[in-house]
C-alpha cells in the first residue's frame, strides 16, 4: 500500500504528517509482532558483564551463547528474573 493510498483511506491531506504517523504505526507494529527480525553477534569478553544493545532494537526475540563444545551451536539462554544480590563485582 502506498503512502497516498493510506492518506486517501484515512482522509488525511498533510503528507508529512501522514508519513510521521505511518512511521509511528510501523514502530508500534514492530514492538508487538515479529515482522523484521535481525541478528547481531558480538564477542564475549572475559570478566565483562555489560554489553551494548543494537541501536535499532525495538524488542528482543532471543539471546543465545555459542556452545563451542557442541559443534558451535548457538543456544538460547534464559533471562534472570528478580534482583541479583551482587550489584558489581570489582574483582571478577
Amino acid at each position: 500500500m502506498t503512502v497516498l493510498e493510506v492518506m486517501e483511506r484515512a482522509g488525511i491531506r498533510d503528507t508529512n504528517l501522514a508519513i510521521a504517523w505511518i512511521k509511528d504505526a510501523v514502530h508500534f507494529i514492530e514492538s508487538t509482532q515479529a515482522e523484521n527480525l535481525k541478528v547481531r553477534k558480538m564477542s564475549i569478553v572475559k570478566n565483562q558483564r555489560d554489553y551494548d544493545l543494537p541501536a535499532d532494537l525495538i524488542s528482543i526475540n532471543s539471546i543465545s551463547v555459542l556452545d563451542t563444545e557442541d559443534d558451535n551451536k548457538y543456544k538460547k539462554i534464559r533471562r534472570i528474573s528478580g534482583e541479583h544480590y551482587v550489584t558489581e563485582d570489582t574483582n571478577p
Partner: protein
Amino acid sequence: MSYDTSSNYFWRINGQKMQLFRYRKNSFLTPDVSGRVQADDNELVYPDEAITNGLRIEYNAFVKPFVSADPNTLATDTNETTWTNPTLTEVTAPEETSHVNLNRMLSLACVCFVQGQNAAKEGNIQLKEYYMREFYKKLADNESNKRKISISFASPVSSVR
C-alpha cells in the same frame, strides 16, 4: 571452551545495557581458604572466558519503513516453482508514491492508526479509542493468520450416535 551454554549463561537488561552472567556451581564439600565449608554452592559470576562472536541477539528492528516496490507482489511469478520476491530498496525521503513496507493486513492496521491519530488531533478521543481498538484487532488478525491450526478429536468408542 564453552559448554552447555543454555544452562550456564543468563542475561538481564539494565538500562540500555544487557548484562551477561555465568552460572557457576561450586563444590560445597571443599573448604575455602579459611577452612569453612560453603553454605551456598552456586553463584552467578561475570563471564569467565572470552568467546569470539559468542553472543547472538535476535531482535525486532525498525528497518525500511518505506520501500520503492510493492512488498506484497512477487517480482517473478511464472509457475509454482519459479518465483521471486521483490527487491526492496529503502526510501529514505518518503513521498506519496512510496510503499509502506507492511503486508496488506498490517497496512490496513496502519490506516486505522493514522485515522486514530487524526481523531486525537481533532480532539475526538472517543473516536481515537475506536480506531486504536480497530488497529489492535487487525494486528491480532495478522498474527492469528500465521497460526492456523486445525484440531480434530477422535470420538470415544462409547459414544452413542
